[in-house]
């Protein structure tokens, strides 16, 4: 047989597209052409495949060889097609029978010595296969845990080409021992490690309940980062499907090591403040990769020293904040990544960072202080519901032997509060308090009279904008859910107003 057909998967964002790899060997001068819009890495596959085949003792066709990847219009990239191309060449040369590979997905990069190297995006690729009803796959050994997590696809993993050929010829599977269970490593962070910080703890909890974006302001060393890092531990664990989606995004980004596979803990991503808009949002020419805000999907995106970010980087977050999705358009098409995250910004109160309390240690001029937080643009701040001051813990707090509330206790409260909100919004398009549309706040989801009277007075004194008014109302709902109040009243609204004011109090 001089024609072979092998199936593999190309990635388009976090969507997998089944690719048919056809290999045709015909008489003529030795030559190799690769069709189907390959990028450079894929174009170079010829040399890898050739060396790998020859070094495993398999033949390389000295004939006219045509390899076609269809659908032909889709731009294909990366090295994951090495292995299917190699197998296609062997089938076309009659070394292995076509039948052994029918109805299977094959993925893997080849090393020159025939070792099969890991590729990115195995998880979304196999999910796509599963959707197409292809329930069998050959994957690199290094990706096998990822492959096993796609329940219905039966994956076999190989570490090198000769093992795979042995398997195809004799049905002998290499002995790798028991597959280690992907385990949830004990999360080492816990809220109980934070000394004091009543106000900030409160802000964190309300933020977690209603999905309210958060701005932490405080001098260096007071625990802003420490607090933010612990937010995932008080968020409800990811559902199975959410965990799968998060794992798929991380798989495409090829940062799998940093996070146990299929972890239920919401991710925590903290890009450095020098990061670029592309790194934040995602991008790339051929292989479009997700950015920090998609890696934070389902979890927390924490930006320390937010005012130090170059202008534009933070504002690039406005679209994902609005739509919970990142759309990246390239010549090759538009790719969508999920980006539903809780934004947590941290900032110093002024450039020197010591403008706190009476501000005695601060060396900044009043203009500098005023300008500093203004670097955060209005439209962005507009999307942030809570502004919390993180003060240095007092001597009393530090000396106290009594640990603060643990994450577990807080998380239990968050989960039950979220349940109340879900029940209330079960017929609505949203399920979090932070997502209540302004019009609905004035109609269906109104607070009690005493609460709104308080806010109206503040509005009259021009201490509150219309925008701020709605934010306070949303926060009031989250606080009510925590307190177990059916409808927010004066207490909740006042507490919400405090959480909202943060900045003005400075």
């Amino acid at each position: 047989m001089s024609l072979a057909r092998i199936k593999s998967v190309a990635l388009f964002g976090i969507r997998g597209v089944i690719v048919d790899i056809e290999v045709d060997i015909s008489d003529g001068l030795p030559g190799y052409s690769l069709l189907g819009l390959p990028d450079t890495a894929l174009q170079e596959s010829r040399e890898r495949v050739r060396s790998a085949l020859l070094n495993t003792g398999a033949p390389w066709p000295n004939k006219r060889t045509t390899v076609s990847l269809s659908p032909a219009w889709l731009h294909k990239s990366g090295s994951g097609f090495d292995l299917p191309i190699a197998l296609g060449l062997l089938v076309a040369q009659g070394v292995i029978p076509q039948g052994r590979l029918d109805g299977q997905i094959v993925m893997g990069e080849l090393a020159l010595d025939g070792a099969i190297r890991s590729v990115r995006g195995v998880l979304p690729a196999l999910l796509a296969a599963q959707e197409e009803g292809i329930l069998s796959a050959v994957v690199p050994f290094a990706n096998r845990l990822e492959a096993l997590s796609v329940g219905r696809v039966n994956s076999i993993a190989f570490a090198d080409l000769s093992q795979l050929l042995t398997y195809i010829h004799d049905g002998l599977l290499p002995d790798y021992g028991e597959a280690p269970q992907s385990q949830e490593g004990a999360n080492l962070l816990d809220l109980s490690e934070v000394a004091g910080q009543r106000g900030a703890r409160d802000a964190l909890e309300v933020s977690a309940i209603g999905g309210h974006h958060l701005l932490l302001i405080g001098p260096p060393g007071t625990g802003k980062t420490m607090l933010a890092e612990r937010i995932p531990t008080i968020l409800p664990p990811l559902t199975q499907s959410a965990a799968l989606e998060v794992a798929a995004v991380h798989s495409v980004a090829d940062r799998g090591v940093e996070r146990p596979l299929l972890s239920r803990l919401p991710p925590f991503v903290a890009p450095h403040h020098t990061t670029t808009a592309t790194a934040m949002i995602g991008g790339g020419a051929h292989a479009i990769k997700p950015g920090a805000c998609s890696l934070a999907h389902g979890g927390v995106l924490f930006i320390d020293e937010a005012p130090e970010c170059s202008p534009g980087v933070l504002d690039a977050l406005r679209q994902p904040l609005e739509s919970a999705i990142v759309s990246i358009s390239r010549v090759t098409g538009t790719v969508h990544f999920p980006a539903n995250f809780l934004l947590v910004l941290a900032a110093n109160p002024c450039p020197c960072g010591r403008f706190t309390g009476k501000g005695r240690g601060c060396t900044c001029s009043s203009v500098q202080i005023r300008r500093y937080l203004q670097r955060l643009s209005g439209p962005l701040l507009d999307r942030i519901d809570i502004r919390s001051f993180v003060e240095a813990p007092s001597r009393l707090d530090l000396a106290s032997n009594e640990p603060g509330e643990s994450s577990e206790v807080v998380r239990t409260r968050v989960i039950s509060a979220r349940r109340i909100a879900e029940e209330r919004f079960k017929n609505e398009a949203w399920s979090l308090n932070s997502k209540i549309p302004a019009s609905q706040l004035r109609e269906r989801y109104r607070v009690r009279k005493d609460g709104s009277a308080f806010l109206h007075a503040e509005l009259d004194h021009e201490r509150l904008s219309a925008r701020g008014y709605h934010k306070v109302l949303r926060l009031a709902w989250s606080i009510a859910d925590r307190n177990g109040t059916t409808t927010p009243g004066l207490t909740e609204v006042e507490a919400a107003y405090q959480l909202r004011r943060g900045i003005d109090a400075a």
Partner: protein
Amino acid sequence: MGRKEQVLGATGEALVSSYLESIGAKVIERNWRIKRGEIDLIARHNGTLLFIEVKSRSSDKFGHPLEAIGKDKALRLQRLALAWIATHDHWGANYRIDCAAVDFSDRLNPVIDYRAGVL
């Protein structure tokens, strides 16, 4: 080119031409040479002119002999073929560029790998 290689090349060409005769082709010319290059064998088979490049190798250490014929070389063969057709007044004739590899790694049993219509 050393003397050894010349002998090997000539033996290869002889082997290929007897192979051609065996399939019913008639060899018209051997080693037709002009300034631009050389055609090893020219034959006629069922009304088609065959222009054949013969590659002889004594071992496969350096890869398959036909791998030495790249796109450029194939196109040069094509131009040489047209030159022969023009100078011999065969305009409009059907023609084909073929390649043959003769593997001498087993000296007593040379193997011919014949590729028809390589362009």
